[in-house]
């Protein structure tokens, strides 16, 4: 059971609205987003429920939900929302706020998703470009799922789908500067 009215002021709502530029209060719970979302059934709470939970100020549940990690930003929901709420922006805002406040969803699936993005960004930091073979291999190593897609790899390599070498960006300095700036700006939010 959730007891309402005893909490402090709902800062979650104001934080999410401010960061996303959307107004969660406009949501009237029609559920069109839920049946639109291609991954809603993988989510702890589908978008409609996340909206209501933000309104209720259930910060911990919202920040720890896997929903924001599963959002593909395909924008199908916002394109159909009768109130034109930018739902992907809301999902992204929640994810960023949770990251900044060090809320971590510990489920294996979210870990895998996060790891993928970490590896991907790492690679860009190093080379300025992405490198698919390395991405697959590193992801498998870091998620300890060594043989995932191993059946695909030979065909893909054989067909020249996945190159062995990558041509890095020459201006490595510019790339590094961008990453530093991003870190600094994120620190500022905290």
């Amino acid at each position, binding site marked *: 059971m959730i007891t309402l009215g005893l909490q402090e002021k709902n800062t979650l709502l104001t934080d999410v609205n401010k960061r996303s530029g959307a107004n969660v209060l406009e949501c009237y719970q029609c*559920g069109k987003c*839920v049946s639109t979302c291609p991954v809603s059934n993988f989510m702890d709470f589908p978008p409609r429920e996340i909206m209501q939970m933000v309104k209720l100020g259930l910060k911990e549940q919202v920040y720890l939900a896997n929903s924001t990690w599963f959002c593909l930003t395909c924008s199908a929901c916002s394109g159909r929302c009768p109130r034109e709420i930018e739902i992907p922006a809301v999902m992204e805002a929640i994810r960023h706020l949770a990251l900044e406040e060090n809320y971590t969803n510990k489920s294996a699936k979210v870990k895998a998703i996060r790891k993928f993005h970490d590896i991907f960004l790492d690679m860009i930091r190093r080379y300025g470009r992405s490198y698919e073979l390395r991405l697959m291999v590193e992801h498998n190593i870091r998620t300890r799922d060594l043989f995932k897609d191993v059946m695909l790899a030979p065909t893909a390599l054989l067909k020249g789908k996945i190159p062995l070498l990558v041509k890095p960006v020459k201006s490595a300095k510019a790339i590094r500067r961008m990453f530093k700036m991003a870190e600094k700006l994120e620190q500022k939010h905290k």
Partner: protein
Amino acid sequence: MARVGVFVCFCGANIADFVDVPAVVEEAKRIREVKFAIDYKYMCSDPGQQQIRDAIVQHRLTSIVVAACSPRMHEKTFRKALSDAGMNPYLLEVANIREHSSWVHQKDKKAATAKAADLVRMAVAKSIANEQLHEISVPVTKRALVIGGGIAGIQAALDIADARIPVVLVEKSPSIGGKMAQLDETFPTLDCSQCILTPKMVDVASHPYIELIPYAEVLELDGFVGNYKAKIKKKASYVNFKTCTGCGACWQKCPVKVPNEYNMGIDKRKAIYTPFPQAVPNKPVIDARYCTMLTKGKCGICSKVCEKGSIDYKMQDEIIEREIGAVVVATGYDLWDPKPYEEYGVGRFKDIITSLEFERMVSANGPTNGVPVRPSDGKVPKNVVFIKCIGSRDEAKGIEYCSKICCMYTTKHTILLHHKVHGSHSYVFYMDIRAAGKGYEEFVKKAQVDTGATYLRGRVSKIYKKGDKLMVRGEDAQIGQVVEVEADLVVLATAVVPNKDNPDLARLLGVSYDKYGYMSEAHPKLRPVETAKAGIFLAGCTQAPKDIPDTVAQASACAAKVCGIFAGDTMKKDPMISTVNKEFCSGCQNCVTVCPYGAIVTEEVPMGHGSKEMRTVAKINEGVCQGCGSCVAVCRSMAISLAGFTDPQIINEIVSI
């Protein structure tokens, strides 16, 4: 020496929360001419008015300032209080410290208070220059014009005519009856729409006090309340109604088939047609867009088969004029076109239809003999999905408001499907069930229990085709799961939108309309049938979406208002009108050009006392002048003055701050 009384109203919290009312009273007391100032919670209430009446006598006041809401709201109330105390009512001035101060400056009480004090100061200064004025009497033409012959127009016309007041009823299409004539049964009683409507249609046609003008449009409306003049275009019907017996030989033989509007285009009618068998008048017209005799000069069959020789291909539109005293606008509604719902495949999938199309199919006199069928293959559907709020409550694609009637007619449709198709099942996707009305919630409950319809709470997100079925996907928020319904037919409850001709008609009549195109009532609560223009009233969906009971109630209310205007032989009118000082008038006639009411004419007067030479000067028609002041502003010789807004009054106001 002027002795002014100032009465400042709290308006409950409306003013008092944002304006320091006692401070305004104190400010007023500092004005030399103010001999009495007081505040009160509700100045418009009887005890409030009593204070005004008492103060007038006790303090021998010469003019009154009430600082309260807009004069549009209560000026009349306070004027009456003055009269009751034996004072000329036009010695009242209202300082609008609610709409002009407290409501618009809610964030700064100090500034709002200062502004309120300024408004009071101006009103006091103006009132000192107020003169005693007296109401004007104008004659009244006792005839009403009703625009639109749907159930709203029919009801209004019958009620007015029953009071023995002549009515001119103008209908755009060839028959009266409107949307209600297209309905099968009506909620919440399921009585047959035709059975309750068609007798009223016949009453209209046979009523000695009603002049029915079908297939016609109002082109112009000049004048003012009690004295309007309407120009009406009778469209050429190419059929002489006087000789036509309505035998039907013409339309039976006509070779040109076009989509039948009455049946939502599901079947065809002919180029010469009566809209439906129970039409009033039951006389055909030729649709000039399609008749090949009129477009290409070929055919002429209808003329050949008409035994009475009633067909006249040379008939022209005719303009007629009627003098009238009041107008009821009853133009009805249109249905929203669901094309923007691309995710539903609207326009691509034939088996998605609108509710009115469904209504025609289940109608006993409909194109499919009362049984719904799939437009794609003509099969009778078993699983029917009804989707509510199509366009309604959808800012992205349609309109923001709730269309009010869809919940109820969809409930009715589940019952009709249940009755007409054995073994059928209804699925209803809804957001809320809005069943506020007498017997409505009971109707919904009975329908749900009797039909076993499956209600799913959620907006449908997608429809796609699988084989010959339509897959309808939505969330059932009650169980938090996404569901897909295999549908044979999908029925969209499309939103009610204003008649698309409303904005043009509103401009022509001189009444205002809102952002959607609904005509605006004078006050959303207290004057729901009047417009801001005196003598023009609104009935039915012209003003907002409404069901039949509400529409009929509003139409009867219009009739009562019209009868009120016609209660005496003359009408009282505010004396705030312009007068011309002939001595100063140079006869330039600028005022004649700017007057929006055509109230200024010219007359010849002698050049001087006893002179035989004449000169032209302006003359105001008292009955027509609405006191807008345009003539005053353009008059270069300052010969025109507007009672209640004279130069000394206005200058006093300006000087006071």
